[in-house]
């Protein structure tokens, strides 16, 4: 899981994107690049603008200013090509509850005008360990199964870029690990993944690079090691513990409290839940 060579064109390129809702400036000039075949975690608190940025990339929302390109296509001028290249897995598992898991996948395969949609659906069910549940209505699925079906639907047609908006929110720890495994497999297969999360350990676990979105701007981008290096080395007493990503995150967004101590506070609680 190393970043793609520097010469390869970025799969996602965002330049100076701004977006306001009325008086509320949600994005204030976002710059972001995601290398082909890599996983970038977009980290931010609730309301930081992660979903707004994702919706702009998925052509669901128009930016006020700036440009965004997906696989070389401009989201405003070439929306149809962007929709071919990018698949969105939104915050709520968007599956049709009345249809079976298999029918959901066939629906997406037919809408993408793939040959042999039933075979595509069966292969996806197999890949996501849903074959046994394939003929049950998606409304009867557990949270983890729904999310797996949701991700499987996004992968039908093998789009080169996948955007996952808080893919593990509301999942139990085991389902969460399953989703993590899926995301790693995607990147191994060459898919570019943009993943938003408020779970800091999720970013630590999965991402090649991490971008921190705070108050409408990317305040820092780098690998986990680079972000850790931003903080001064642990003070006089030679504590072995390195600063956790959580410490870096809180320090970068200007959160009060001493850095490089054991994680505490609500964020740690949330991560554990």
């Amino acid at each position, binding site marked *: 899981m190393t970043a793609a060579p520097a010469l390869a064109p970025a799969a996602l390129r965002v330049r100076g994107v701004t977006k306001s809702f009325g008086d509320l400036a949600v994005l204030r000039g976002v710059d972001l690049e995601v290398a082909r075949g890599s996983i970038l975690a977009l980290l931010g608190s609730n309301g930081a603008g992660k979903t707004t940025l994702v919706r702009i990339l998925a052509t*669901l929302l*128009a930016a006020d200013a700036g440009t965004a390109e997906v696989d070389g296509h401009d989201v405003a001028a070439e929306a*149809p090509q962007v929709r071919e290249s990018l698949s969105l897995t939104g*915050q709520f598992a968007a599956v049709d509850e009345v249809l079976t898991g298999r029918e959901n996948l066939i*629906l997406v395969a037919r*809408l*993408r005008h793939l040959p042999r949609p039933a075979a595509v659906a069966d292969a996806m069910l197999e890949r996501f360990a849903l074959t046994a549940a394939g003929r049950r209505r998606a409304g009867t699925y557990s949270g983890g199964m729904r999310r797996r079906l949701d991700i499987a639907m996004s992968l039908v047609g093998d789009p080169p870029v996948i955007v996952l908006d808080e893919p593990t929110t509301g999942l139990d720890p085991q389902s969460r690990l399953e989703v993590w495994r899926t995301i790693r497999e995607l990147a191994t297969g060459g898919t570019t993944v943009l993943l938003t999360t408020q779970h800091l350990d999720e970013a630590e676990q999965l991402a090649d690079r991490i971008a921190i979105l705070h108050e409408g701007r990317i305040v820092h981008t780098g690998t986990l090691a680079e972000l850790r290096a931003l903080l001064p080395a642990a003070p006089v007493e030679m504590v072995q513990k390195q600063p956790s990503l959580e410490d870096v995150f809180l320090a970068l967004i200007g959160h009060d409290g001493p850095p490089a101590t054991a994680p505490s506070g609500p964020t740690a609680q949330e991560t554990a839940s």
Partner: protein
Amino acid sequence: MTAAAHALADTRILTGRSLKHILRSPDTIITTAITPIALLLLFVFVLGGAIDTGSGGSYIAYMLPGILLITIASGIAYTAYRLFMDKQGGVFERLRSMPIARSSVLWAHVLTSVVANLASVAVVLAVALLLGFRSGAGIGAWLAVAGILALFTLALTWVAVIAGLTAGSVEGASAFSYPLIFLPFISSAFVPTQSMPGPVAWFAEHQPVTAIVDTIRALLSRQSVGGDIWVALAWMVGVLVLAWIGAAAVQRRAAR
């Protein structure tokens, strides 16, 4: 495939999807038909005997057009409901982020509404036949009636689309249909408008339901439809176009 062929194929695929919803909960067809059937029984067996329509025909034949419009006015609420659920659950956004013709998402819901409502109308019509309704209308007149009912459904369903797209709750998504269900009562559907007090009669004579009811009644009783059919068509096409433009505007606003 050309863009138009793509849009047609996408609409067909998505219409198949929402028709599956209806086949898996056929109770929506029956629920839509129950209130109109209850009204049918109420007017035929309880109130109808006291109503003098001055038309000489059977009362059930007189009131049936209004009952059919009430059936459709209550049935379209399901479209608002299904659309709201699609929005709520994220399916709507998923479809809009996919490489498909965007218009197909709404058209699929609208076409499904036409099929479902015509099915409900058929159920109500069957009950009316059991209760003694008879018509000497020929195949051409019946086709014209079916066309008018389909156009009525199409126009009101686009109103339902606006409601489904803008609603904040499930209840809100269907509340808009209540006034539509009552509109036939202040029309020529159940009693002649001449029997109403002045201002009410004026409203009844100038609202769309009266022209539509009079047209269907004339077609089913083998009378000349006169100018009513043009007034009826103008109303339905007008509502259809305005609601369609409104729905498109709502969608554009959401993407801004």
